[in-house]
C-alpha cells in the first residue's frame, strides 16, 4: 500500500479553510465565530488524541483494552443521543435507554461482522473491531436520536389524540402507534438516503480512506457494501428498540401517557 503522508504544514493549510466559515458567520452576523473556533480546536484535539490512543491499543492487541475503548465509545454515543433531544426525560432513564440500545446493536453488529464475515485472527484485533464498532455506533446513534426525539416531541403534540384513544380503551402501544410509526420512519430515513446516494453522489468515508491508503478500489467497495448493510441492519434494530423503549418511558403499566416524566422544554 502506498500513500502520500501529510505533515503539519499540510494540516495547517487545510485548517485555513475554516476562515471561509468565519467569513460567512461574520458577513451574515450569525454569531458563530466562537463556536467555530471551539469546535475546530475540539475536533483537532479529539482526532489527534484518538490517533495516539488507537496506535497504542493496536500495538497491544488486547481484548481488555479493546473492550475498554468500546465501552467509552458506547457511553459517549449514549450521552450524545440524550444531548440531541429537545424534550428530555427526567433522571437517567434516557441515558440508560440510549447506551443500552447502542451496547446491544454495537455488540451484535460488530460481532456479526468480525466473527461471521471478516474473521480476523485473533478475532478481537482492535484494527477491525474498533472502526467497525465506530461506524455502527455513529449511524445507529443518529437513527436512535432522531427516533427518540421525534417520538417524545410528537407524543407531546399529539397528546389529545393519544389520550382520546386511551380513553376509548386502547392499550398504550396501539394508542401511540401513529406517533411511533412516524418516529421509526424518521429514524430510518438517513440510512436509507445514504444507501441510495452512496457511490454516485457520495463516496463513503471509509471507502475513501481505504482508497487513499492505497487499497484496490474493488476491495474497498466490497468492504463498503458490507458496512452499509451492517449499519442499515444495526440502525433498524436500534431504532425499533429505542422507539419501543421511548414508548415505555413516557407511558406506564396502567397505560397512561406520562408526559410528566419529561423535563420542561429548555429554551
Amino acid at each position: 500500500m502506498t500513500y502520500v503522508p501529510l505533515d503539519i504544514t499540510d494540516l495547517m493549510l487545510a485548517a485555513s479553510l475554516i476562515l471561509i466559515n468565519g467569513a460567512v458567520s461574520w458577513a451574515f452576523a450569525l454569531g458563530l465565530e466562537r463556536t467555530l473556533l471551539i469546535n475546530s480546536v475540539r475536533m483537532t484535539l479529539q482526532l489527534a488524541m484518538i490517533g495516539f490512543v488507537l496506535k497504542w491499543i493496536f500495538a497491544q492487541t488486547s481484548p481488555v483494552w479493546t473492550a475498554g475503548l468500546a465501552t467509552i465509545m458506547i457511553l459517549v454515543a449514549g450521552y450524545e443521543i440524550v444531548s440531541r433531544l429537545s424534550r428530555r426525560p427526567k433522571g437517567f432513564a434516557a441515558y440508560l435507554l440510549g447506551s443500552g440500545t447502542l451496547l446491544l446493536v454495537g455488540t451484535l453488529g460488530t460481532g456479526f461482522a468480525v466473527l461471521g464475515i471478516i474473521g480476523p485472527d485473533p478475532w478481537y484485533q482492535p484494527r477491525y473491531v474498533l472502526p467497525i464498532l465506530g461506524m455502527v455506533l455513529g449511524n445507529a446513534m443518529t437513527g436512535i436520536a432522531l427516533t427518540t426525539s421525534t417520538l417524545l416531541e410528537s407524543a407531546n403534540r399529539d397528546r389529545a389524540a393519544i389520550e382520546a384513544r386511551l380513553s376509548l380503551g386502547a392499550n398504550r402501544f396501539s394508542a401511540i402507534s401513529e406517533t411511533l410509526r412516524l418516529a421509526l420512519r424518521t429514524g430510518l430515513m438517513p440510512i436509507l438516503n445514504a444507501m441510495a446516494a452512496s457511490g454516485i453522489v457520495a463516496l463513503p468515508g471509509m471507502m475513501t480512506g481505504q482508497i487513499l491508503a492505497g487499497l484496490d478500489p474493488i476491495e474497498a467497495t466490497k468492504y463498503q457494501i458490507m458496512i452499509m448493510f451492517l449499519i442499515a441492519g444495526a440502525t433498524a434494530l436500534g431504532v425499533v428498540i429505542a422507539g419501543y423503549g421511548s414508548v415505555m418511558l413516557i407511558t406506564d403499566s396502567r397505560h397512561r401517557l406520562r408526559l410528566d416524566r419529561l423535563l420542561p422544554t429548555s429554551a
Partner: protein
Amino acid sequence: MLRVEKLKIANLPSLSFEVGDGECMAIEGPSGIGKTRLARALADLEPTNGHIFVNGAERMETAAPEWRRLVRYLSSEPGWWTDTAREALPSEGRSEGAILRLLESLNLEPQMLDKPISVLSTGERQRLALVRALIDAPPVLVLDEPTSALDPRNTALVEEVLRYQLINGRSILLISHDHDQVARLADLRLQLAPVGEKPGAAQHGAEPVLTDIKTC
C-alpha cells in the same frame, strides 16, 4: 354506580363520594382547582392514590383499557388521530343503527362520519366526540365541558342525549361552567373550593362540599 374513596388529587383534601346509576354529579369550582385532574383521575389517566369502584370492580384490580370502557372520559378538547370520524369509532359494541340514531339526535348528518375531520367545525367535532364516547355504552361518563363549543340549540340536544343516558342507568360526572346547565342536569354537586383564604396564607387547600341539589 361509581364509588370514590379517599381519592387524593394535587393539594385537594382526599375526596370520597358516590354517584348512583342514573345520577348526574356536577364537579364545580374555580379554574385551576383540579376539576379536570379529578375527571382524568377517575378514568385512571393520571396516577392518584385512593380507591375507585364501578359496580364493585376496583380500579387497580381492573386492567386499565378495561377500566376506561367502564369510566369513559371525554376531554374538553377531544383529539383525533384518523382522517374521518368513522375510523375513530370503537369497533366493539357498535351497531350502524345505534350510530345513526345518535348522530340524528345530535343534529349531525350521517355523511359527516366520512368527511375529513379537518373540514368539520369545532362544534361538529365536539358532538362527534360525544358519539365516539357513547357508542359502546360505558356505565360511567366523565364529561369535561361537553357543550363548550355549542350554540344553545345544539347544547339542548346534547343535554337531551345525556338525559337519555341517565334514564338508561348510566352515571354522569359533568364539568360545566354553565350554571343553568348544571341546574338542568345535575342531581348532586361536588364543590371544589379553596378554604381558609387567609391573607398571607402560603397555600390554598380546597374543601369538597357534597350537596344534594335536587330534593324530591
